[in-house]
């Protein structure tokens, strides 16, 4: 909503629940990896999703990408895209064939670019495989389009003739980004795309993501556990803890004035060069999603925990024009 009265959001996720279900040896187990998450991503916006390992952010991304395989199951809620007026609802009775949408409207940048680039084939073939049928042009013109796109991303067109192993890790990730953006999709999912990279390379790759997003005006959901990356890239930030969204708002506002104690801790504990003040660690460990605590899932570790936190589950409520938080201590009128 940084655009003011923006048009309809590109992605709307409503009350989404996705569980890993195992029925084995007579014991039923539900791992509630995504529990009642509601969010939207606006047009031309980078939405950051922060959280620790096994907080459900990867599961949420899989669900949004339509990459659901057993034992993961969507229990309820909806995921709806709006591609320039064309509404596409996953997990609906008349859900569309995802193959029509992938790469053309919805693309991915993953952590290991090798999973996209076929190691046995030249980079050119990966472009042809994924993008050719979406760009309705003859092969020669198509390749010209690809070359122009690569040049725009400061990549030499010669990379098309290389095999993936001939490129460095940062180069491969850039090629993966070029591949994900060449069809100018409306929505891009980026799952920890810079985590395995060195810091100097990471900065270059992030700058490139930013540039290409501005250029083609698509929306991006960017997942990483690294708050410093979010601070430098994302317009809005959502923080997940134990399968739930606990805070969401403009990145700068959250970093400056976090309202949820978990977010506050994450930001306060970031070490900075030039800062030697002792940083306090958060006690305890994240809960098991198979057996989460009653009430607010953060309460066993929370310095502000009250009685109500142990009994009731706080809902996301507005604390600013575009700032939501799920915490009784941060919601006026709920204190006891």
């Amino acid at each position, binding site marked *: 909503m940084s655009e003011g009265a923006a048009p309809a959001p590109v992605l709307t996720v409503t009350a989404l629940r996705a569980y890993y279900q*195992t029925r*084995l*040896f*007579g*014991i039923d*187990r539900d791992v509630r990896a995504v529990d009642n998450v509601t969010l939207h991503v606006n047009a031309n916006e980078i939405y950051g999703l922060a959280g620790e390992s096994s907080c459900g952010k990867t599961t949420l991304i899989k669900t949004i990408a339509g990459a659901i395989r057993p034992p993961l199951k969507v229990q309820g809620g909806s995921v709806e895209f709006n591609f320039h007026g064309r509404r596409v609802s996953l997990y609906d009775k008349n859900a569309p064939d995802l193959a029509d949408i992938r790469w053309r409207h919805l693309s991915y940048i993953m952590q290991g670019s090798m999973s996209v680039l076929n190691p046995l084939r030249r980079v050119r073939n990966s472009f042809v495989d994924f993008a050719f049928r979406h760009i309705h042009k003859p092969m020669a013109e198509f390749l010209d389009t690809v070359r122009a796109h690569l040049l725009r991303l400061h990549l030499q067109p010669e990379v098309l003739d290389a095999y993936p192993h001939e490129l460095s890790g940062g180069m491969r990730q850039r090629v993966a980004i070029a591949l994900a953006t060449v069809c100018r999709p409306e929505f891009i999912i980026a799952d920890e795309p810079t985590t395995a990279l060195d810091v100097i390379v990471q900065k270059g790759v992030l700058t490139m993501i930013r540039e290409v997003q501005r250029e083609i005006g698509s929306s991006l959901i960017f997942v990483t556990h690294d708050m410093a990356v979010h601070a430098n890239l994302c317009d809005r930030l959502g923080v997940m803890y134990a399968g739930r969204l606990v805070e969401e708002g403009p990145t700068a506002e959250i970093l400056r004035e976090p309202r949820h104690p978990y977010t506050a801790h994450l930001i306060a504990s970031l070490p900075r060069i030039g800062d030697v003040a002792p940083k306090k660690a958060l006690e305890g460990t994240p809960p098991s999603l*198979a057996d989460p605590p009653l009430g607010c899932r953060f309460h066993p570790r929370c310095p502000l925990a009250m009685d109500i936190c142990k009994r009731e589950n706080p809902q996301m409520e507005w604390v600013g024009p575009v700032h939501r938080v799920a915490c009784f201590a941060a919601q006026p009128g709920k204190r006891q």
Partner: protein
Amino acid sequence: MWQVLRDLLRYNREFAVGVFLLSFVILIAALSFLAPHSPLDSYVVPPDLPPGWPYVLGTNSRGQDVFWQLTCAIRNTLLFGFAVALISRVLSLVIGLIAGYAGGWVDRALMSVNDTFIVIPLFPILVLFYFVMRDRMSWMTLALAMAFLGWSYDARLIRSVALSLRAREFTETSIFSGMSMRQILIQEHLPYVLPIVFSTTMNNINWSIGLEVTLSVLGFTDINTPTIGVMIYWANQHTALVAGIWWWIFFPVALVVVTFIGLFLLAVSMNEYIDPRSRLGRVGA
């Protein structure tokens, strides 16, 4: 342990069927101790009777009861298979684990021996072995010979796993916890290769029984010890199929097939339960 076995029987169909088939085969082998005649005696029953009562699986042209003959043959065949598998497993485990862990020249030396064994043509060697041994050939010497020829593929497989285990951080933790090489190999690495050993054991039993049957059918073994192969050998000698004595060949072959299927199902289902991550992770115990 018993808990795990009970759960396996209750919830894993492959395991249950495998146990059932193998128990059936072992029961038949065990019945050999109740056999009324020695399996080597001939013309103790009327020859060439089809399956019926009192000779349930019929009798053969040498005047032997096929059922009692079969109990004894499957016992010897099973023993043979297990003996080969056991000896060759021990060899491949020791060589594979040490080569993978020690690396360097130890690895190169062991693997050059290993590769020599891989390229040796088995069948001519075993036939040659028979001609050298002649009358001293017993199933035990054949088992030893096959065990010494049958470890090399799996040793290479185990070595490759051991190499990757050597590079994992927990091996370093074990070293810096003061464990000796023997402790690390047996306590830390062995559990990882056991699933491989289990499934290759089944393959190895399969291979050794198959080879033994082949050698026996051609008469290159000690034909006085009744095994499944020797039974088929004698049936062929008496041209049983031409004479219409199909039960003399059908029942031994059927029993071997049942044995193979039982072992295979066990191998498949056991793999899943050797790894506590999958077991504990799913049950949440």
